[in-house]
């Protein structure tokens, strides 16, 4: 998401999380279907590596899943 600050991205991730809850897919009776998210922002500085950027967000995503799911980690 170009020109998107971390706050904007967090708000958007929350919007996505809520949208999935609103779709209302039943996984089991006790648990509706949910999604977990990892969010990261690159500030355009030199020396940063794209691969590391993506892998860092991937780790956050899995931290969100390990932390109980239906969650967002930034």
């Amino acid at each position: 998401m170009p020109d998107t600050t971390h706050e904007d991205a967090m708000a958007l991730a929350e919007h996505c999380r809520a949208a999935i809850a609103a779709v209302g897919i039943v996984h089991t009776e006790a648990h509706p279907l949910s999604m977990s998210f990892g969010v990261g922002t690159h500030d355009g500085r030199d020396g940063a590596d794209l691969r590391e950027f993506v892998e860092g967000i991937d780790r956050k995503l899995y931290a969100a899943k390990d932390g109980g799911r239906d969650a967002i980690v930034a």
Partner: protein
Amino acid sequence: MIRDDAGEVTSLVGFMFDISERKAREEHIEQLQHTLMALSYQDGLTGVANRRRFDEVLAAEWQKSRETGAPLSLILGDIDCFKSYNDLHGHLQGDDCLKAVAHGLKRIAKRRAILLPVMVGKSSRS
């Protein structure tokens, strides 16, 4: 050009071809190429962008962000316990679930004009 003995032009001979059919065929091929190109960047099940498109757009936006210093954000999402959903409800319903999720997220992405890609085959832990 046909000339008489004195070298004067007496008549012009030309040929005309109707190329409208060829042109239509070329346009059709161009259209097919366009469609093929679009399909090669699309996920077959959900219709949203595929991994290939994601990689290309991300690389381009990364470069742009480095040049302009503008922030670039990325959200990675994963459906919780999707393997168990598939095991419980079957793969056909799993496909419907993916379509419904993509549909829900597509509305948000469209409103914000952001790219929504889907990545398939990534091993999911839970």
